[in-house]
């Protein structure tokens, strides 16, 4: 299959996406941004799934991606609702302020 982009490139982009997402989750304090970063991580993983699936001609990876997207959509629905609820009580969506359960 000439003319196609080698697998390694996909993996590298997938890793970059995942790392950006992880970095975003770790260093940002805005809950919305953290959510978006999580989406980045998920999509990084999705990209890896799809790349491997295509490379090895296995349908499983592609199907799994649909599941991940579905779960992500559900997660966003729940997560956004949570964020709205938190904002209502605290007037902020800074995750560092939500530390009342600390030991």
């Amino acid at each position, binding site marked *: 299959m000439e003319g196609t982009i080698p697998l390694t490139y996909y993996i590298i982009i997938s890793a970059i996406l995942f790392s950006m997402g992880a970095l975003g989750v*770790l260093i940002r304090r805005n809950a919305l941004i953290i959510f978006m970063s999580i989406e980045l991580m998920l999509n990084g993983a999705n990209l890896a799934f799809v790349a491997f699936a295509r490379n090895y001609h296995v349908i499983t990876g592609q199907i799994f991606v649909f599941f991940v997207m579905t779960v992500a959509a559900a997660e966003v629905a729940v997560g956004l609702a949570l964020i709205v609820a938190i904002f209502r009580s605290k007037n902020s969506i800074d995750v560092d302020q939500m*530390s009342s359960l600390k030991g």
Partner: protein
Amino acid sequence: MENSGLFSLVPLIVFLPVLGLLTNIIFGQKLNEKAIGIIASTASGLVFVVSLLLGYGLLASGGHEQLVPLADWIQIGNLSIPWQFRVDTLSVTMMLVVSGVGTLIHIYAIGYMHEDVRFKNDTKRYARFFVFMNLFIAMMMILVSGDSYLMLFVGWEGVGLCSFLLIGFWYEMDTLARPSWANSNAAKKAFIANRIGDFGFLLAAFTMFWYFGSLQFGEVFASAEAIAASQPGVIMAITLFMLIGVTGKSAQIPLFVWLPDAMAGPTPVSALIHAATMVTAGVYLVARSWSLFNLVPEAQYIVALVGAFTALFSATIAVGQYDIKKVLAYSTISQLGFMVAAVGMGAYVACMFHLVVHAFFKALLFLSAGSVILGMERGHHHLPHHASGDGHSEEVFDPGDMRNMGGLRKQMPVTFWVYMIGALALAGIFPFAGFWSKDEILLDAARNHTLIYILLALAAFLTAFYMGRQIWMVFFGKARHEAADHAEESPKVITVPLMVLAGLSILGGALNLPYLENLGHWLEHSIEAVVEHGAEIQGYLAISWGGLNPVVALISTLVALVAIFLSWLLYGRRTLAKGEDDPLRKLLGPIYKVFENKYWVDEIYNAVFVNRFVDLAGFLAEKVDWDFWHDWLHDSVIARFFRWFTKFLANPIDLGIIDAISNGLANITQRSSNALRKVQNGFVRSYALSVLMGMVLILGYLLLK
């Protein structure tokens, strides 16, 4: 066996009185006195009816013994002891006497206890009395109807218990004349003296079991002869051990001391248990074991000697007593001595004859004495100082003391006449019942053992004398106490049983008249009447008018008449004045003092046995229990060791090890949680970082392994 249906009634003789007593236990406090008395008397009366039916059944079936099994009792290895009734002429005779006399006494007690519980201010005790009386009837029936020595022993102990309960009936009732401890002590004395006798009985039973392997009458008697041939000492030991039991239950020397004290119980008790029925259990035991006793003439002779000595010994004591019931008590011991002597001589028929007849006239005498006592109490109740005010006067009045009586003939005519009949029967005057039975015993004694004859004849002399003395003192002359002047005759419920018993005392001799010998033929089915009439009976003793020897009969009648005449000379010709001393004291001097003080037997027993026992008990309590056991062993040894041991357990073990483990666990947990709580800082991002680090670590491990 066309009469087997009749014999299957026999368990009723035990269960009817049990039913009666259960009724009175359950409903006794709600029923009135009349109902209680009627229930108890009916139970006893029905037993008499059943006994009559059994007797009829025996007559109809030729008198052969009937064994009626009721239940299995003990089954161990080869030993098998069922609860089995033995209906034969001997046991039915006893049943008839016990239930017949017992029923009359129950009826009498309805009246007697009615007044007794009022004189002593405790009417609640009325029902209890009849419960005990019915229990006694049941136990006595177990005793006489059992088919083994063990069953007999159950009844033997049961009647002992009833005796204890009834002697101590007023166990916490203080009266002016009698403190409560005297009653309870009398009960204990009776029980303990009987226990000593029972020990002998038990030894006999154990020996029997060891050598015969059985306690059933039939099996024991069947193999007795074989054992006697191979081991002659065994039967001797068994019979002598039994004799110890007999001396306890039938109040013979040396264990007779309990019976005079047993008069502490209400008078119907004295009549039923301590004169007519229970005390004859020992005699019944020997009569029942006749086939053992017949094998060892030496033991028989010892039994006869014990009986004869007791007869004379207690007759002398009776001469010196002032309490109306005490005289009768010693008289009972004396008459039991007659029976034991008779049974020892192998004169079983004469013995059973005397037993039955004695039950009639001695019950009569006791019940009449009770009537006299009640009359005196009523008289005392009517005295002006008694009625006027402060309850009891300061004077201590003993209604049973003959020195307070006198002239009661006029106040209590019925009691006087029945007492007279009883006394004549006891003295052995023709034609009263005692004449026939006593004469048979005396004849057997005269033919076999001269020594025993002399002892018994002397006892018969004294018997007539002390009965004469009693009659003169109680019923003749002038009242020596105002109470006797005001005495009143007892009600019908009391006098009617007395009249019935008086009739029996007159006619009782008909049980075994010469030529007829009805009782003899009746008992033949149970006892082979073998009186060894020596090798040769010479001279006048050989004369026999159908079993009656006119010479012996004449001698004993003369002896009795002389004795009564003597008593008239001393007490009747000029009756005692108030406060006057007994004329015998002047006549006999120190000997009378011996009689009056009962040979100091109680004092000797106290000094030799009782006080030693009390000393021992004191030593055990003070030294062994308190000093050694409590102070030293408990306090010093056990408590101190325990204290040290608990300290050891508490400090090094509990605190040092067990607590340390749990405390250490708690400390570790606390410390580690203190350290770990810092990890939970509440920042979501730091958790996320640790998740990431963890994943990196796991992945790194998986990649690099």
